[in-house]
């Protein structure tokens, strides 16, 4: 297995691939270029990104690239599946909570000054209209969207599919959102460490997963202090504030990376009630939630992927 590591999308990126060295090296280069190009397209921290142009075009039709159109289309579908707990139009609330710069910049400047408390999301993302023929997107006036997490998952999956053209098996891990193709030689699963949310240098356990996606959402990783309170980037659309949840992190295993990312976020925001989202899709999804005492709550299918012998009391 060959590896390449670099930083993009404010995350550590790991590419892993098996195959002939020359081809794998070319695949790494191709995948990296794709990731860096996509970051420029989807970032909300640059006025020149396509996402920023879309946000400035609210109230009129915007002709999007195929990539942006696909992610916005996916977002709308997943918003409906999650009953609105995933909602890209929380961007104003996210800024209100203090997340108005990239996390790398924000960490240098904590703690933040006082701001108005958040309000429930005012805009209805279902009002957004899509025209597949022209790749046109229309957002109601005033709507601002953030595609950070879902775009990262989508980019990881697309990059893995590119890399797979050069490798017999490969993985792309974008800051915990990963997509796995094939299996390492002689193995019947990929082994993925589940990071302890309270100690990032330790793993709580290992997951044994097949080809597909793994994504984790955490209230700990992207957090900052504002008004003396710890804030995090997972906004609950019902309140417009960082979600007040029992879980510290939720990991979802699913067929697609964008889907895994969105459901991890949704279950984390919903707390213990979040398992209803996975129950509906139990055959294709599994989740593992970790609470503040490091207890792990595992969905029925999740037990199959934990590399341990369960010990019952």
């Amino acid at each position: 297995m060959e590896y390449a590591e670099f930083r993009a999308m404010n995350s550590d990126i790991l590419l892993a691939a098996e195959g002939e060295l020359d081809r794998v090296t070319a695949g790494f280069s191709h995948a990296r270029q794709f990731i860096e190009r996509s970051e420029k397209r989807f970032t909300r921290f640059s006025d020149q990104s396509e996402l920023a142009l879309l946000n400035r075009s609210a109230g009129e039709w915007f002709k999007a690239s195929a990539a942006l159109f696909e992610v916005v289309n996916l977002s709308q579908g997943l918003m409906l599946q999650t009953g609105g707990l995933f909602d890209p139009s929380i961007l104003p609330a996210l800024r209100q909570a203090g997340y108005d710069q990239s996390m790398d910049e924000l960490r240098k400047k904590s703690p933040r000054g006082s701001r108005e408390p958040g309000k429930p999301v005012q805009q209805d993302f279902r009002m957004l209209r899509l025209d597949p023929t022209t790749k046109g997107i229309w957002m109601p006036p005033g709507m601002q969207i953030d595609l950070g997490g879902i775009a990262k998952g989508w980019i990881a999956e697309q990059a893995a599919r590119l890399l797979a053209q050069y490798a017999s098996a490969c993985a792309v891990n974008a800051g915990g959102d990963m997509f796995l193709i094939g299996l390492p030689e002689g193995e019947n699963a990929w082994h993925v460490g589940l990071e302890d949310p309270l100690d990032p240098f330790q793993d709580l356990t290992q997951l044994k997963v097949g080809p597909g996606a793994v994504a984790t959402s955490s209230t700990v990783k992207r957090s900052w202090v504002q008004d003396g309170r710890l804030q995090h980037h997972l906004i609950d659309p019902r309140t417009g504030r960082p979600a007040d949840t029992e879980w510290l992190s939720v990991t979802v295993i699913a067929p697609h990376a964008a889907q895994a990312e969105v459901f991890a976020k949704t279950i984390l925001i919903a707390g213990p009630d979040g398992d209803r989202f996975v129950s509906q899709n139990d055959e294709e999804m599994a989740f593992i939630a970790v609470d503040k005492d490091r207890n792990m709550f595992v969905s029925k299918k999740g037990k199959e992927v934990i590399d341990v012998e369960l010990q019952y009391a």
Partner: protein
Amino acid sequence: MKVFKHGLRIWISAASLFGFLVGWILFAHSNKPAPLFQNQPAQNAPLLSFNNSRAGLSSFSLQQQSPFRQPRLRTGGS
């Protein structure tokens, strides 16, 4: 005949020495073999023990450990 024997001994000695040196040089410049046992960091993943269950979920707390084998793919949130 005596001269021939003497010459043969010298030729065998020289050829042996030359072969030894060539072999030495070849091995010295070849790749080192992989060690039989690699000194891997003791990063061990804990086992889980069952605590309680609620609404179809199972709860676990940490107990013991098992070794890592695969690439260090980790997921911890973004």
